[in-house]
C-alpha cells in the first residue's frame, strides 16, 4: 500500500501547476500593471516547468494498472496542447470590456478577471493531469470535476452576452447530470468489488477461462457501463453530446478551442483507465457492443449534423463529436501485438488525440483571429471584446488571398481532420483503422470510412472556400494586431504541428504512444526514452523538430 508521501512524489507536475495557478491568481490582482501583464507568461512558464517535471518524474513503473506510460504520455500531451491553447486563449481576458474598465486610471480588482482566467485555465489542465494519474475511483472523480468546473467559469466570464452565460449554465447542469451518472457507475463498481483502488478492482474481476475475456459480475458490468456513458459527456459522445454545439457556439472562440480539446483528453484518459479495470485486451462482449454502438452513433450523428450546419463553430462542434466516435472504436480494438504500433487501438487513440487536438486548435484559432462584418439575422453577434465571432461559411470566402498564413493553417487543419496523407490526421486514422481491422471489426471499419467520407463534405467545403470562395457580402476581417493577441502564432504552431506529426516526427510519437501501453522494465532505462518523447511532441522549436526527426529515423528501422 503506497503511502501518501509516495503518491505525492509522483505528483510534482501537478503541484507545480497548482502553485503556478495560485501565482497567476495573485499576479492578476497585483497592483502593478506590469505584473498583471505578466500573468499569461506565468501560466506558460508554469506549464513548461510542469512538462519538465513530468519528464523528470518519469514513468511510474508501479502503476496499479501497468499504465504508467499512459499517465506520462497524457500529461505531456495535455501540456503541449495546453501551451498552444494558451497562445490561442491569451488575450481573451485582456480584450474584455470589463478588463478595460478595471485597468482604468485606478486598478479595480473587483472587475478584473485576468487572474481568474489563467488560474482556471491551469486548474483545468491540472485536472486532466490528475485524471491521467488517478489510481483510485474517488481520485478519478475529483480529478474529472477539477477538469470541468473551471471550464464552466471560463465560458461564463469571457463573453458578456447572455448566450455565453446560457452556455455556461447548460454545460454546468448537464455536466452535473453526467457526473452523477459516472459517479453512480463508480459506486456500483465499489459495490461489486468492495474497492475503490484500481489495482484491487482489477484483481477482483474474474477472467473467464473459456474465452479469455473478462467475466465481470452483472453489478460490476453495470458500473462500467454507467461510468463509460457518464464519461461520454467529457468526450462529447452520443448520447451525452447534445450540449456540444450550443456550448461551443456560446463560448468565446478561444475558449471553445479549449473545450474541444482539454475535456476530451481527460475523458479518453479516464475511459482508458476505467476500461482497463476489465483489461483493454479482454473486454467482455457487452462492453464491446456498448463501445461500438456509441462509436457508430457518435460519428454518424456528429457528421450528419455537422453537414447541415452553416455556423462554423457549430460545424467544428459536431466535428469534435464525430472525432470522439472514431476514437471510441479505437478503445475496443485491444492492444494488439507488443512492439507493433499498428493494431494497438488505445495507442492509436492517444496519437489521434494529438492529431485531432492540433487540427481543431488550428481551425478554432483561425476562426478566433477573424471577425465577421455582418450579422445575418440582425442580432448583435459581438462578444465582450466587440468581436463578432459567429462566423458562417461565407466569412471564410477567399481567406487565403487576404491572409495566406491563416488560409494555409485553415487548409492544413481541415486536411488533417479529413485524414489526408501526409498530415497527422491521416496517421491517426491509419492507426485507428489498423487497430480496428486487426481486432476483426470489419463492419465498424466500413462505417468509419463512410463517415470519413461524409466529414470530407464539410471539411473540404471549408478548405475550398478558403481558396476559391466568393462571398456575397463582406467576408470576415482579420482582427487587428492588438485585439487578436498571439492567436495567429498559436494557429501557425498548430498547423505546423499537424503537418509535421504526419511525417517522421509522428513516427516517434506513435512509438511513444505504443510504448505507453507496454510494461516498463526498469524506470532508469525508460527515462531517456521519455525525454525523447517530450522532444517529439514539441514542435515549436526547430532543434526539437530536428531531434525528433533523428528519433523518427531511428524508429524507421523495423524491429523484428
Amino acid at each position, binding site marked *: 500500500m503506497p503511502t501518501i508521501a509516495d503518491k505525492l512524489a509522483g505528483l510534482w507536475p501537478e503541484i507545480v501547476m497548482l502553485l503556478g495557478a495560485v501565482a497567476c491568481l495573485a499576479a492578476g490582482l497585483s497592483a502593478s500593471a506590469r505584473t498583471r501583464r505578466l500573468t499569461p507568461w506565468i501560466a506558460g512558464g508554469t506549464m513548461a516547468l510542469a512538462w519538465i517535471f513530468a519528464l523528470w518524474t518519469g514513468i511510474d513503473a508501479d502503476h496499479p494498472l501497468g499504465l504508467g506510460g499512459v499517465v506520462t504520455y497524457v500529461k505531456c500531451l495535455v501540456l503541449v496542447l495546453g501551451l498552444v491553447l494558451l497562445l490561442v486563449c491569451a488575450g481573451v481576458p485582456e480584450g474584455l470590456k470589463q478588463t478595460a474598465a478595471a485597468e482604468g486610471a485606478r486598478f479595480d480588482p473587483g472587475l478584473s478577471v485576468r487572474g481568474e482566467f489563467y488560474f482556471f485555465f491551469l486548474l483545468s489542465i491540472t485536472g486532466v493531469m490528475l485524471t491521467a494519474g488517478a489510481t483510485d475511483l474517488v481520485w478519478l472523480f475529483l480529478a474529472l470535476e477539477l477538469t470541468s468546473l473551471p471550464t464552466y467559469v471560463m465560458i461564463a466570464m469571457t463573453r458578456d452576452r447572455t448566450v455565453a452565460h446560457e452556455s455556461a449554465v447548460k454545460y454546468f447542469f448537464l455536466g452535473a*447530470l453526467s457526473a452523477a451518472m459516472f459517479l453512480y457507475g463508480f459506486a456500483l463498481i465499489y459495490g461489486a468489488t468492495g474497492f475503490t483502488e484500481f489495482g484491487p478492482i482489477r484483481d477482483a474481476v474474474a477472467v473467464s477461462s473459456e474465452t479469455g475475456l473478462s467475466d465481470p459480475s452483472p453489478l460490476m458490468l453495470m458500473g462500467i*457501463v454507467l461510468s463509460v*456513458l457518464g464519461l461520454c459527456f467529457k468526450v462529447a459522445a452520443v*448520447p451525452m453530446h447534445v450540449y456540444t454545439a*450550443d456550448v461551443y457556439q456560446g463560448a468565446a472562440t478561444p475558449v471553445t478551442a479549449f473545450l474541444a480539446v482539454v475535456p476530451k483528453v481527460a475523458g479518453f484518459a479516464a475511459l482508458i483507465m476505467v476500461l482497463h479495470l476489465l483489461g483493454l485486451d479482454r473486454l467482455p462482449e457487452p462492453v464491446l457492443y456498448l463501445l461500438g454502438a*456509441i462509436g457508430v452513433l457518435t460519428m454518424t450523428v456528429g457528421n450528419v449534423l455537422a*453537414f447541415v450546419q452553416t455556423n462554423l463553430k457549430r460545424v467544428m462542434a459536431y466535428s469534435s463529436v464525430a472525432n470522439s466516435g472514431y476514437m471510441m472504436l479505437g478503445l475496443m480494438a485491444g492492444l494488439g501485438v507488443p512492439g507493433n504500433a499498428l493494431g494497438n487501438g488505445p495507442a492509436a487513440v492517444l496519437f489521434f488525440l494529438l492529431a485531432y487536438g492540433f487540427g481543431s486548435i488550428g481551425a478554432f484559432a483561425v476562426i478566433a483571429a477573424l471577425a465577421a462584418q455582418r450579422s445575418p439575422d440582425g442580432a448583435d453577434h459581438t462578444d465582450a471584446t466587440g468581436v463578432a465571432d459567429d462566423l458562417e461559411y461565407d466569412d471564410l470566402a477567399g481567406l487565403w488571398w487576404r491572409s495566406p498564413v491563416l488560409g494555409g493553417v485553415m487548409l492544413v487543419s481541415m486536411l488533417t481532420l479529413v485524414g489526408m496523407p501526409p498530415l497527422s490526421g491521416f496517421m491517426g486514422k491509419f492507426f485507428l483503422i489498423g487497430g480496428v481491422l486487426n481486432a476483426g471489426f470489419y463492419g465498424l471499419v466500413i462505417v468509419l470510412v463512410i463517415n470519413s467520407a461524409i466529414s470530407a463534405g464539410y471539411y473540404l467545403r471549408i478548405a475550398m472556400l478558403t481558396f476559391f470562395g466568393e462571398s456575397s457580402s463582406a467576408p470576415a476581417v482579420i482582427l487587428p494586431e492588438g485585439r487578436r493577441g498571439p492567436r495567429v502564432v498559436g494557429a501557425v504552431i498548430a498547423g505546423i504541428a499537424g503537418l509535421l506529426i504526419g511525417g517522421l516526427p509522428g513516427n516517434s510519437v506513435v512509438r511513444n504512444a505504443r510504448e505507453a501501453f507496454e510494461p516498463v522494465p526498469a524506470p532508469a532505462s525508460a527515462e531517456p526514452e521519455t525525454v525523447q518523447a517530450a522532444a517529439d511532441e514539441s514542435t515549436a522549436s526547430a532543434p526539437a523538430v530536428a531531434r525528433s526527426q533523428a528519433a523518427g529515423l531511428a524508429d524507421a528501422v*523495423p524491429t*523484428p
Partner: protein
Amino acid sequence: MTPTLIPWIPALAAATIGLISLFRSEWNRFAGALCAGAIGLSFVLTLWLSSSVGSGVVESGFYDWISFGSGDNAFHAGFSWFIDPLTVVMLLVITGIGGLIAVYAHGYMKGDPGYWRFFAYVALFIFAMTTLVMADNLLLLFLGWEGVGLCSYLLIGYYYEKPKAVAAAKKAFIVNRVGDFGFLLGIFLCYQHYGTLQISTMLEGARETLAAVAHGHGAVTATDVWIPFLLMVGAFGKSAQLPLYMWLPDAMAGPTPVSALVHAATMVTAGVYLIARCLPLFELSPYALPTVATVGAVTALFAATIALVSNDLKGVFAYSTVSQLGYMFLGVGCLSTDGAVFHLVTHAFFKALLFLTAGSVMHALAGQLNIQTMGGLRHKMPVTCWLMFAGCLALAGVPLTAGFFSKDLILGDALAYAVDHGSVLFFALTFLGVVTAFLTAFYTFRLWFTVFMGEEKFEMGDEHHAADDHAGDHADEADAAHDDHAHDAPHEMPWSMNGPLVVLAAGALLAGLVLHFTGGIEHAVQHSTAAVFVDAAHSQHAGDPAGDHGGEHHAYFLGVDAHVFMQVLSSILAVAGVVLAAFVFWMKREIADKAAARFDKLIRFARHEYCINEICDAAVVLPLRRLGALFYAVDRLIINSVMDLMGGLPRWLGMGVRPAQNGRIQSYGLTMVLGVALLAVLVLVATGG
C-alpha cells in the same frame, strides 16, 4: 562516381537551362551550347568509363532509391548502375550521336522562340536514356523508359501550336502506354518470380533454370513463359514494331534533330536493348524469340513497302527506321544479339545522318517535304547531296558500308539458325529479310535520285500552304529561323551544321568495316548479359560457346557458308536495287510514272499504310470510344443519381436529427437520460438477458 555523372550532367544541364529561362532569359541563347557541352562531357566520361570496364562489369551505386521491408520481404531498388560492355556500346551511341545532333540542332533551331525549351528537353532525354541503359534494376530501367517516353512526347509536341504535332504527341504517348502496360506487368511478374528486380540476379536465376532444363532436371514454369511475352509488348511499343508501330511515322512532326536523335538513333532502340539485356529471360520460353523474330521480319518488310511509295521526305526515313528496327528484332530473335547490337550502332550513324540531311533539305526549302516537288538539288546543295548519298549507301547495304556488315550479320545468323535448326519459319523470315534488303536499297535510292538528280526543280514550302498535306508542316520552324531565305532559292547549310554530319557520314561509311574487323561488337556482346546461353551438354549449336556462327563453326547453305552466301546475295541485291532505282528514277523517269499509273490503287493503298490506322480505329479506338460513351451515360444517369442520393442522405439525416438540438436544457437532459437507458438496455440484451 564516373557512372553517376554520365546521366546527371545532362540532367543538371536541363535544370540549369530551365532556371536560366526563368530568371535570366537573356542568357537563353546559351542553352544549345550548354546542352551540347553537357552531352559532350558525358561522352568523354563514357570513353573513360569504357576503358575501366574493359570486358568486365562495373557496378556502382548512387543512392538507395526505394527500400522497405526487412528480411525475406525486403525490397530494394537503388539508383545504381550496372555497366557491362553492352551498356558502354549503348552509352557511346547515345552520348556520341546525341552530342553531334545537339551541335547540329544548335544551328538548326537558331531563332526558334522555344530554343531553350528544345535543349532542356534534349538534355533531359539524354538523362533518361542513359539511366535506362545503365540501370541495374528493372524499376530504374522503367524510370528511364518512362522518362524517354515523356521527353519523346514533349519533343514531338514541341510545336504545340500545330494541332498535327499535338495529335502526334498524344498518339505516341498513348500507343506507348499500351506497350508500357505490358512491360509493367512483366516487371511485376519478375518481382513475384525472382523476388528481386536486380537485373543481374534475375538473369543469374534464369541461366540456372536454363542449365537445369538443359541437363534434364528442372522445368520451365508458366511464369517463365509469360515474362518474356510481357516484356516483349513493352519492347514492341517503344521500338515501333507491329502492331504498335503507328506512332513513329507521325512522330516526325517534331523538329528534325529530334527525329534523328529520339526516333531513329536512340530511344526506339530501347526495345532491342531490353531484349538483348534480358536475353536469358527470353531464352526460357521456346516461343518468345521466334515470336520476336517473326514480328521483326514482318515489320521490316511491311514498313519497307510503305517507304517504297511514300512521297514524304521524312516519312520515307521514318518507315525505313521501323523497317530497320525490324531487322534488329529479327537479329535478337535468332539469337544474333551481336548482329542486332551491331546494326543498332551502324543504324544510329546512318539514320541520324539521313534525318539530319533531310532536315537540311527541308530547312533549305522552307519546310517542303514532298519529294515529288523536288529534283536536281545537287547543284544547290552539293554537300548535303553527297552526305545523304553516304547515308543512303549505308542504309541500302552497299558492300563495305556500315549497313552492309551489320545487316548481313543478322541475315547470315538468321540463315545459319534456320539451317542449324532446320526451321522452316526461320528460312521464311530470312527470305523476308532478303526481300526487304532489296526493297531498302531500291526505296532509299528512289528518294535520293528523285531529290538530287535529274532536272532541277523545287517548290518552296510556305506556312500559308499549311493546309497542304506535307508542305508547310515545318514551315514556321524554318521561317522563324531563316525568314529572309524562305522564298529565296535553296541554299547550302553552314559548316557548323554540316560538320557533325561529316562525322556521321564517316561513321556510316566506315564504322561497319572497323567494327567488323576488330570484332568490337561481338566482344561487347559476349561479355555482357546479352551473351547467348548455350549449354555445353545440350548444345544445338555444336559447341560454339557464344552461339556465334562465325569462327570454327559453319552452317552451310547450298554448300556455301551461310554468312558468305548472305554477303554475296545481299551485295548483289543491294547493287541491283541501286541500279534499278537509278534507271527508273533518274535515267527514265517515264517508266516510273507509267508504273505509278498502272499500280495507282495499290500505291495509294500502301501509302495509306494499308489502312492500318483505319483498322486500328475501327477495332480499338471506336469500340473504346463507344464504351466510354456508354460509361459516361451510366455515370451520368445511374451513378450520379445514386451518388446524389447518397450525398443527400447525410443532409436528410442531419435535418432529421436537428430538431433534437433545440437549445432547451430540459430536452437535452431528457435525451441524455433516455440515451443512457437505451444503451444500458442494449448491454443487458448483449449480456444475454
